[in-house]
């Protein structure tokens, strides 16, 4: 792997050896490739930003301009005015509120239930545990489409279509097996002595969980909170299936609504990219603030998997 030579003490002359020269060349190639990959990642992203700040006549030009002239940040307000012109209820605060409402409730339910279930799998011995755990992991493979039709029918029977219920409280049933798995791995890495001491002192399970385990698993709770926020904020399939009143839409559906009603004949890419940027912004912000948690969260599963 390491082609750079370690500095040796017996070399007195400052002179580049062939090995060092290939080392420099090697580094140049590595960085050139990294920069190329970075460009491939960033160009589409920058194009989204750039488009969102253009006027309509700047959209279809013969040359590629990344810097709009003039720059029109008003797009971010006008896109909502356009939406309100056909659906007065779809205001910015309402749609953001809907998205946050769904995201926060689902995220909270996911974290809470997953931590309980993971605790049960990691810290208590009971007959059938390994089998149940294996079944839980196997459910990851079931494609969502198989349960989608019956799921829809269940909510229809309950009379809860076009409410936020299907998107929020089922999270209390640990609907993300992956999160349970990640937390279990983390529980397993915590030494048992601390909780055993507490049990000796007469603490019950709820107390041990709340006062001892939760503070100890804070890093993984944070990591999962971040992943879960992102997953629920970006969720499209669930809302598409269950919500039908435009005023109740989260951002993902508002985007689809704009696309299908206002952008059908002549695509309004500047407005659509403004919406896309608005939807990506909170997730990006969270990502940059909590990058450590993000990377940790995705890696725990992968390395031990």
């Amino acid at each position: 792997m390491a082609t750079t030579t370690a500095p040796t003490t017996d070399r007195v002359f400052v002179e580049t050896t062939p090995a060092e020269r290939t080392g420099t060349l090697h580094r140049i190639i590595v960085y050139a490739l990294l920069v190329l990959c970075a460009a491939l990642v960033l160009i589409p992203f920058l194009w989204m930003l750039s488009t969102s700040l253009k006027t309509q006549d700047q959209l279809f030009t013969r040359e590629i301009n990344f810097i709009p002239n003039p720059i029109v940040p008003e797009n971010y307000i006008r896109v909502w005015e356009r939406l309100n012109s056909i659906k007065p209820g779809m205001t910015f605060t309402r749609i953001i509120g809907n998205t946050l409402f769904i995201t926060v409730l689902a995220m909270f339910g996911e974290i809470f239930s997953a931590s309980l279930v993971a605790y049960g799998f990691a810290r208590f011995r009971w007959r059938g545990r390994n089998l149940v755990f294996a079944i839980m992991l196997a459910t990851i493979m079931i494609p969502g489409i198989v349960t989608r039709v019956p799921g829809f029918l269940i909510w229809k029977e309950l009379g809860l279509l076009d409410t936020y219920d299907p998107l929020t409280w089922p999270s209390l049933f640990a609907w993300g097996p992956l999160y349970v798995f990640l937390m279990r791995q983390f529980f397993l890495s915590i030494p048992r002595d601390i909780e055993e001491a507490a049990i000796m002192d007469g603490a019950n399970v709820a107390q041990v969980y709340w006062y001892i385990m939760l503070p100890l698993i804070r890093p993984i709770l944070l990591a999962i909170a971040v992943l879960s926020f992102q997953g629920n904020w970006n969720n499209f399939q669930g809302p598409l299936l269950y919500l039908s009143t435009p005023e109740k839409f989260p951002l993902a559906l508002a985007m689809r609504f704009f696309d299908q009603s206002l952008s059908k004949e002549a695509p309004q890419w500047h407005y659509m990219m403004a919406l896309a940027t608005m939807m990506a912004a909170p997730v990006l912000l969270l990502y940059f603030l909590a990058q450590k948690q993000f990377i940790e969260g995705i890696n725990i599963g992968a390395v031990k998997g």
Partner: protein
Amino acid sequence: MTDPGALQSYWPTLVRYVLVAIGVGLIMFVVYRVQIAFGVKREAATGRALVMPWVIGFLIFNVFAIGASLYLSFTEYNLFKAPEWVGTQNYQELFSLHLASLDSRGQRSSDVLPRRYEEIIRVEVGDGGLVLGAKEDGFWRAMRLNLPYALLNVPLGLLGALGVALLLNQKVRGLSFWRVLFYLPAVLPAVAMALLWRWMFSQTGIINTLFAPLYQVMNIETPRWFTDPSYAMTAFIIIGLWGVFGANSVILLAGLKGIPQELYEAAAIDGAGAWAKFRHVTIPMLSPSLFYNLVTSTIAALQIFEVAAFIPTSEAVGTFLNWQIYQEAFNFRNMGMASAMAWVMLLIILALTALIFRSSSAWVFYQGAREEAA
């Protein structure tokens, strides 16, 4: 929130959310008490009570739902009338495939196919050729697009990810910076990204503008990426790769970092060159991470949804399985047929994962397992 309409739609859900949470707590308590009453040890009783939230969800949203889906796949059901049992009719329709031969080049497919069969694949060889037709043409067109897509996208993505992970493992400066950057596409909302790519690949979009001189030199027309079958796969692969390979490389990098340096030193003492080290140390040690990536990206590639929902394609191109089934169920209201299609898809995914798992014993190396055997 000053909007009264918003509160009206929030609070009933909030109330039910709290009630369900209390209900789950009660069930956990009852499960614990009942076990204690039957003389189960406290530790086991607590453990079982704690996993109850998942068990309840599993029974309702997996076991019951999957059973219901299987039942529905043998019925005709449009939501307005009760499901009507039709036996294997849906599956028979679904697998109504017909292979016919063409008598001459350019002969219309409809001339050689039976009524209600539409062309799926057409191959012209010499003076004649073959045509494969199907009754459920939408589904088979989705298969025609989705299976080759997965077959190309998964290995390409894995190779690309491995390449980037190896680059990042070269003791580069600012590792966390590169890592954050490369993981970026996986964080962005799939919905926003699907729209962005539709815009970039559109007729007058940035990609066609960029390559306009190239088209002129090669003397080809400006591609219509999502309506022309000869371009659609390329466009979808690019979109798919952009979305995953950075993220996968971050996962593989963690695997690379976990390889003990001693192994490379030992290999060097044995006279191993760079390639030998890669082949006999890196690959075996990384195989569990590669395996994990292979499984998850195969499942993901077969379940593309947002891209299909936001990027309209022509009939000649077809769409992705997940979206095709979604439309069958919720646009055309053929719940029975959609369930049958979903079951075929489930079986395909299970077969592929089983295949990967079976093959894993040949190439995935688990350190712990080897040590135990030794």
